[in-house]
């Protein structure tokens, strides 16, 4: 049973690309931690450094209390499932499963026994004598899992193991992985760019962007209390809409001006002392697409945005509409979206009013970091 700790890890490639920037992170014994981020965010690099396939430019990697920076991959007792499975094409399934054990110089009898146990667990018994090229994608995936499990490693690494499978199989194997990990209790790092996979598998999820850890939190926290605009925009489908808003003070306290209309922050959950440094400045205001709703007729006292629809996607149980960005500032989203009820009949080009409640509003400072709400006690990159 093992704990993994990254301390101030950085990685710069020979061509100058900075893949990981001063990253600290620890994985508890028996935990399944998911590394989530868009492609090129450094999540695979981090995994490969733990496996020993790349070496960090700075910082320390520990497994339990041992620094493994300078250990060769074969000395780390780590197992890895590759995106393309990397089954040895010239070996049968049985030989593939036996390979890690052979490298450990186990006796033939013991190898046979362990291969059998793993094959049974992953329903591979009938496939033992087949060659990898005769297997389907899902079967190959199971063999790759088996090869990783067979020698009871300290740490289990998975690099986008489901991305080459079709949707249905992905769902099924996702559940298998979760169950296997629970049953074996092996500390696992799981890399994916798919937030649904991340949220269903990991108790904690580390979100990375350009080599920097953005937030390490549970799925719920990532959704409900994103640490910054990147996490807010990345989590959720579609991600949070973020508008430029001017913060100002009137008789009733602080308010933000979005699209020319003022919205009082009195019931927003943001304390005055949090808001006061930004008085008169432009901040970023976010709202989840599912928190917007269609307002027909009179606004009443609802805060509404008047938008012209650029796209309408009917998904059956809901309708997702897209509209051009409001108060666009440099680098922000070019388009916003809203998730509306399936009954709403809408056309492209139609101008509609979308209502939002101040309780659903998220505020970020000009640099994109979340402003703390009353009752929040999360530091953005807590390690545990």
């Amino acid at each position, binding site marked *: 049973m093992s704990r993994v700790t990254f301390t101030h890890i950085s990685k710069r490639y*020979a061509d100058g690309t900075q893949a990981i920037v001063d990253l600290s992170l620890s994985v508890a014994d028996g935990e399944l931690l998911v590394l989530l981020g868009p492609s090129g965010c450094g999540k695979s690099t981090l995994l490969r450094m733990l*496996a*020993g*396939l790349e070496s960090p430019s700075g910082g320390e990697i520990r497994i339990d209390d041992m620094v493994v920076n300078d250990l*060769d*991959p*074969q000395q*780390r007792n*780590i*197992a*890895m499932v*590759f*995106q*393309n499975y*990397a089954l*040895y*094409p*010239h070996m049968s399934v049985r030989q593939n499963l036996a*390979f*890690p054990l052979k*490298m*450990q110089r186990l006796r033939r009898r013991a190898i046979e026994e362990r291969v059998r146990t793993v094959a049974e667990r992953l329903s591979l018994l009938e496939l033992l004598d087949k060659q990898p090229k005769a297997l389907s994608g899902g079967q190959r995936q199971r063999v790759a899992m088996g*090869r990783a499990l067979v*020698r009871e490693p300290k740490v289990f*690494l998975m690099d986008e193991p489901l991305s080459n499978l079709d949707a249905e199989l992905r769902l099924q194997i996702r559940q298998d992985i979760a169950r296997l990990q629970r049953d074996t209790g092996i500390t696992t790092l799981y890399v994916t760019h798919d937030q649904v996979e991340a949220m269903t598998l990991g108790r904690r999820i580390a979100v990375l962007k350009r080599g920097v850890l953005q937030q390490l939190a549970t799925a719920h926290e990532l959704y409900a209390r994103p640490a910054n605009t990147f996490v807010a925009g990345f989590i959720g489908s579609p991600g949070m809409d973020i508008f430029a808003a001017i913060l100002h003070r009137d008789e009733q306290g602080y308010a933000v001006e979005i699209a020319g209309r003022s919205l009082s922050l009195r019931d927003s959950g943001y304390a005055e002392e949090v808001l006061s440094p930004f008085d008169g400045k432009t901040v970023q205001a976010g709202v989840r697409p599912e928190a917007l709703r269609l307002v027909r007729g009179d606004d009443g006292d609802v805060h509404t945005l008047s938008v012209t629809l650029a796209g309408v996607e009917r998904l059956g149980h809901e309708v997702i509409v897209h509209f051009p960005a409001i108060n666009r500032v440099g680098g922000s989203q070019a388009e916003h979206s809203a998730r509306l009820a399936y009954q709403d009949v809408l056309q492209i080009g139609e101008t509609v009013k979308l209502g939002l409640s101040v309780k659903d509003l998220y505020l970020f400072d000009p640099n994109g970091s979340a402003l703390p709400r009353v009752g929040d006690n999360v530091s953005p990159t807590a390690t545990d």
Partner: protein
Amino acid sequence: MHRKRLWNVLDYLLLSATAMLFIAPVLFMVAGSLKPDARVLSEMDSLRAVLPAEIDWQNYRDVFARIPFGRYLWNSALINGLIVGLGLIVNALAAYALARLSWRGRTVILAGVLALLIIPFEAIAVPLFYQLSALGWRNDYLVQVFPFVANPLAIYLFYSFFLGLPRELEEAARVDGAGILRAFFVIVIPNAKPVFATVAIVTFLLYWGMYLWPLLMTVDDGVRPLPLAIATFYTLPPVQWGDILAFGVMMVLPVLVIFIAFQPWFVRGVATTGIK
């Protein structure tokens, strides 16, 4: 429909004609080796040039009577076997280091290896002769093997094949507990059979007919290869064409056998090294 069939026929005619261009000399050699000496040249202009009237093994008996053919064959086989065998190991390892390991000076060395491809052997034969003579390496097997083991063409063929192999296979082996060399021997080599066959055939063909170098470096028939032996038939009067052709057949036969044995892999090797 008719038109398509006509084109088909034309295709085959053209291909057959081309094939004949390549097969005719071989047929001539085989046929010539099986008939009395006088007829070899006199039947040149008839169909008998490639179809002997009767089969006569006398030329073959002559070859064995006039020179120690078995000795020459053994010399050639040993020299080529060593060049090919040692070459596969040395060049594959060199190419693997260039393709997969990262070390200072790698790109410079790679460029140097590729540059060597354009230098013809004749250009370095004389300096090499002086160099090795100074070492006292003359008139033995070693001097005929050693300079040809490392081969830039072989390194290049291996190198480009290894680059095309999925890196994850070796990485998986490393993580599964194999060292670099173990991963190379257990994972890379079994998946690189086509390129090994290709390199084996190419180097074998390259050196089986080698003439200049053994002529420079050897004087003793005990270590000389086949191409030098065939030359004695031109210099020992009378010049008997039947004997020369019989010798030729016996010299080509091993090449043919090796080519046919490795051919399925060879063709695949050429295809994959080309695409990847």
